[in-house]
């Protein structure tokens, strides 16, 4: 049983480390590395945290590149850095980016890396909503949530018995664990904590504290089987549950929280082409194809025929929260 279990774990570790690393992994040494993982994650200093985060972020950029709009990227960095300056870790090398994918999600990697997808960005109506999203991710980093998961990871403890070895392989596995955490998600309590921090950091930066609440409403209104939300819904508690948790702590504090500002958000340059499909798209039904053409036509005139004249919740949110 023991050897079978070990093989499974070894295969899992190899899978986490990614295809490039898998080729060079010596299975015999993986458990040796496990020991180092434990020590390293526990004792990870800030420079190591940044190095691991940089690798995890670089891999995420390997899954989806940045939107080719330098002004947009610079803008998001200024907004994000301003919020990060209101935290206990203002001097981390903060980096913010908008990923060119239609997925709706945002990621944080240790050491100050925050990536928001274009799909999420384009749902946002105000800079205070963007601030809420960035502040949630900044909260993960300030609280070292991912580092803590690495530390407590079952994978780490599984290998804790072995002896110390190759440093490069160790870092590689930490990165693999980090990438896994990004793909698998943190636990609910970490997400709720990041929500509470997100509200406060946005408020500290001078924004309306409620941008994140609005984004959660926007997310909650979208269909649960919306493909662009699959990963977000898999890795986070349901938006409604997050709203409930926030309501518990916000209700008694509303009177004390500042009103804040809701500046307009910078939009993706219209010259920027839509993101390339990461994988072949599922065949779209005929009616969808015509809807797509209509979208590409760039019309901004309300079309009563497109969806049977009905007004969906997502659209209404854009109105309610769109200012």
């Amino acid at each position: 049983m023991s050897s079978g279990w070990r093989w499974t774990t070894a295969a899992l570790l190899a899978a986490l480390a990614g295809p490039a690393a898998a080729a060079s992994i010596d299975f015999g040494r993986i458990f040796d590395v496990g020991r180092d993982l434990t020590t390293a994650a526990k004792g990870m200093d800030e420079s190591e945290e940044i190095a691991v985060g940089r690798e995890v972020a670089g891999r995420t950029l390997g899954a989806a590149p940045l939107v080719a709009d330098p002004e947009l990227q610079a803008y998001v960095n200024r907004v994000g850095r301003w919020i990060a300056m209101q935290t206990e870790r203002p001097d981390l090398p903060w980096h913010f980016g908008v990923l060119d994918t239609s997925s709706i999600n945002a990621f944080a990697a240790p050491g100050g890396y925050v990536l928001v997808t274009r799909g999420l960005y384009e749902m946002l109506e105000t800079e205070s909503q963007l601030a809420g999203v960035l502040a949630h991710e900044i909260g993960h980093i300030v609280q070292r949530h991912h580092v803590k998961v690495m530390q407590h990871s079952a994978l780490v403890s599984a290998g804790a018995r072995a002896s110390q070895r190759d440093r490069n392989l160790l870092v590689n596995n930490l990165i693999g664990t980090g990438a896994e955490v990004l793909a698998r998600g943190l636990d609910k309590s970490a997400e709720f904590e990041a929500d509470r921090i997100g509200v406060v950091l946005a408020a500290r930066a001078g924004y309306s504290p409620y941008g994140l609440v609005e984004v959660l409403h926007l997310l909650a209104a979208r269909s649960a089987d919306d493909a662009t939300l699959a990963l977000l819904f898999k890795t986070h508690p349901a938006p409604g549950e997050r709203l409930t948790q926030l309501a518990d702590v916000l209700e008694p504090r509303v009177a004390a929280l500042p009103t804040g500002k809701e500046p307009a958000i910078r939009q993706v340059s219209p010259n920027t082409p839509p993101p390339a499909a990461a994988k072949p798209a599922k065949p779209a039904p005929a009616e969808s194809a015509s809807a797509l053409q209509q979208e590409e036509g760039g019309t901004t005139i309300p079309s009563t025929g497109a969806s049977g004249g009905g007004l969906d919740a997502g659209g209404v949110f854009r109105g309610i929260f769109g200012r």
Partner: protein
Amino acid sequence: MALAGGEAAHYNQPIAQSAFGTSGAGLPGNMSSRDQALQAYRFLLAALLLAAAPAAAQQVTLERDSLLYAEPRLDAPQVATLKLGATGDVIGKQGAWLNLKTPAGTGWLFSFNVRFPSQQAAAGNTGAGTAAGRLFGPRRSVSVTSTIGVRGIDEEDLKGASFNADQMKLLEGYAATKEAAEQKARASGLAPVGVDYLDSKKQ
């Protein structure tokens, strides 16, 4: 590029404000006649937009018992007590508050105490760029999120991806200094405020 979008958003904001009666920055005390004309035009446009879309009053459901206030302030008179499961139509928003029209009366309550209905899953209906979005949201160009069938990155993509050095170099090049961030914040009228972290326990 900012022209098309930026101008549109800037232009649209006062419409939403006048339509929903939000305070925002308020109106300047001494408006020129041109400003007044513009304001009147915006108000007219807002009224037309509202009249054209009566269905836009969206029904929401209370997630918990909640007081309905005459104004978006905790010290405002209480209009009614709404029970969990009660419904109402949203007719405006301001900060944490939604303006709700209910059988028990019209008033304000916290937005986080209600839930909007989830939209039906349907091909071609991905939420962005919808009729109401075009009507009330900032005028913006085509949304990539409405590109049909492109599902973007998923768990497998993330796990299988390898480090992209060129993109990392780009990302690092976009980093903002504290000074640049401060300057941008000032330009947007943002000033730091002291706010304590929220306790995770009910207070």
